[in-house]
């Protein structure tokens, strides 16, 4: 009996204790809520007081800015002094080759590029990139472009890279290979077609992508044009793309440039390009890209007919690795080759293979091997072997690249 009483007492007391605890809990909860209300009130007040934005700050309107650094370590079986003298028969004579990138055995700092983009107003956006070479400052591009014209028209004006062909308008650091395709280098030099001028592009209102563009440029490029007594270069192109299924896309283009050369006679250049891209996954793809260019150049003493192509295959394995191979060559070289008598001027060609490693989307290490059979050095064909490791960094607000 005693036991029972004690037990029931115990239970009762524990029940009582539970009720007491609940009450305390509730009190605590109420307190908590009160402090919460207080603290949110306080913090909202705090926010009001801390929003002391600078009265004349324009930080929000600063342009997007990026810094691109490109450098390399090169090993080559030709002395630097010899390499400088390299010629490409029919295109570039001894001493006339321009080597802005990767010229020296050993280390090269190719450039620091500052790229800027800004929306000017509801109708224009502006782009500029400045190339800083070790001994030289260059305005790579600086142009404005419309954003709001009707009928799918867009006008660009300033100094810009022409949209001729596939690779012309792309910057060196976004090429699949570090070296410029031979046919581009021989016809236009390292900057490709880049000039002051205006551009008009139009996209057709069709399900299939069809883009037509025309450009008027100064034509300062002396390799193919160069008569800049007035604006003498006109360019037109047509580009179209279709998707085959979800993963395969085909992009093709036809380009035409008409200008006047240093002999004040016409130069016509025709281009055909084709890019196939098969997407194998989010980070994996197979790209086959080829271009063919032909130049007809009238000179006072002769008519040159020259052509060449490149074809490259790039396998993007994953986020980090990509592998590529390229073949490029001169296919036609009807010009005055008398300065090269006794030298084999046929089969000017080059083979390149590369591996890219990107530890992070903004940085890229690239190891490439080039077997170059396109150069004449000191009056003799000289095949050049080159191994290069290059590093490219894009820091800051660097916009996504075009397709």
């Amino acid at each position, binding site marked *: 009996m005693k036991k029972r009483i004690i037990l029931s007492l115990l239970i009762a007391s524990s029940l009582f204790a539970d009720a007491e605890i609940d009450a305390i809990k509730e009190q605590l909860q109420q307190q908590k809520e009160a402090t919460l209300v207080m603290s949110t009130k306080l913090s909202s007040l705090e926010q009001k007081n801390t929003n002391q934005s600078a009265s004349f700050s324009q930080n929000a309107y600063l342009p997007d800015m990026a810094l691109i650094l490109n450098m390399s370590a090169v090993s080559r079986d030709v002395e630097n002094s010899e390499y400088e003298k390299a010629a490409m028969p029919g295109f570039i004579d001894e001493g006339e080759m321009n080597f802005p990138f990767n010229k020296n055995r050993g280390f090269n700092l190719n450039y620091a590029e500052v790229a800027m983009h800004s929306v000017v107003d509801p109708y224009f956006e502006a782009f500029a990139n400045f190339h800083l070479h070790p001994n030289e400052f260059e305005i790579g591009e600086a142009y404005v472009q419309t954003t709001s014209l009707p009928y799918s028209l867009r006008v660009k004006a300033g100094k810009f890279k022409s949209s001729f062909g596939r690779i012309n308008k792309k910057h060196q650091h976004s090429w699949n290979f570090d070296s410029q395709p031979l046919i581009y280098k021989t016809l236009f030099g390292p900057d490709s077609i880049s000039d002051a001028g205006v551009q008009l592009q139009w996209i057709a209102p069709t399900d299939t992508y069809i883009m037509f563009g025309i450009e008027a440029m100064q034509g300062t490029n002396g390799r193919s044009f160069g008569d800049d007594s007035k604006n003498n270069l006109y360019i037109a192109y047509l580009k179209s*793309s279709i998707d085959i299924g*979800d993963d395969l896309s085909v992009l093709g283009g036809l380009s035409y440039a008409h200008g006047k050369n240093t002999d004040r006679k016409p130069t016509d250049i025709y281009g055909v390009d084709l890019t196939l891209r098969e*997407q194998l996954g989010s980070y994996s*793809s197979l790209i086959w890209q080829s271009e063919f260019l032909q130049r007809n150049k009238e000179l006072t003493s002769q008519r040159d007919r020259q052509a060449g192509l490149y074809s490259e295959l790039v396998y993007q394995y994953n986020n980090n690795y990509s592998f590529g191979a390229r073949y490029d060559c001169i296919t036609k070289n009807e010009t005055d080759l008398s300065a090269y008598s006794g030298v084999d001027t046929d089969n000017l060609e080059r083979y390149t293979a590369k591996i890219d490693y990107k530890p992070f989307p903004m940085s890229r290490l690239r190891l490439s091997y080039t077997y170059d059979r396109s150069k004449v050095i000191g009056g003799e064909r000289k095949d050049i072997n080159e191994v290069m490791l290059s590093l490219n960094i894009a820091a800051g607000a660097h916009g996504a690249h075009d397709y």
Partner: protein
Amino acid sequence: MKKILLLLLAFTTIVSAALRVETTYSTLGAITEEIGGDLVNVHVLGSSKYDPHFIVPKPSLLAKLRRADLLIMNGGGLELGWLPPLIRGANNANIQNGAKGFLDISHYIPMIDVPTSVSRGFGDVHAQGNPHYSTDPYMVPIIARAIMAKLLELDPDHEQRYHSNLEKFSYRWQKYLEKLDAKMKQCKDKKVVQYHELFNYFLKRYNYKSYGNIEPLPGIAPSSKHTIALINSIKKNKIKLILQDVYHEKRTAKFIASKTGAKVIVIPHDMGADGSKNLEEYYSNIAKKLCR
């Protein structure tokens, strides 16, 4: 003959009357279709089988954007790597940033995981907060309302129909959420790890806790050091679920599973990524896989 011509004319005006809407992802596209009905013609730019951060900006997408009346994007930086060149290249004044036909849904979303400091030294972080909000079914009505407001602005003649579509959809979604919540109440195991912070909004909604990511930093491939640390954390915290998305490599997740006994479950990050055909199926599939 005249009749046929008139009919043809009427037909073409009907066809052209529908607003051409491009959305960046499938979930946004499906919600737009719910609100717009046959007043809109919706096309999705980014296939849900791919990483939403890295959609390939194919030129064929330019042709789509060129004719769009409205572009609806997720925002929060998710499209930063692929959409700007497409908008620039489409030569369409309607859909420029700030134009009437441009809608950034993230402006309507209470974003979570907003970093206090941002540096690429921490990886490719989302500077504006976690943009993967569409994994949370509670965001759907917010998205729907934002889309309706935009459609009203572009096409005020059909105000009534957009309103009634939204009303019907909201009611249906309310009922669906009740069912989904009831199901999610039964889940016991609420500890997970994930590949990228894709599912934080869903996890937060249903009181799950994410103990880490397979990627050591956002956008950076797994490293062995980080993987070992994650394995230890999984063992220590007795975590049984590894959330894998459809597009990343699955080797690392499988390896971690083999070392810890945790289970790899593939969760769709967007409608259609797992073959789901509508919004309910999409969110139910997430719930079905996650809830145990």
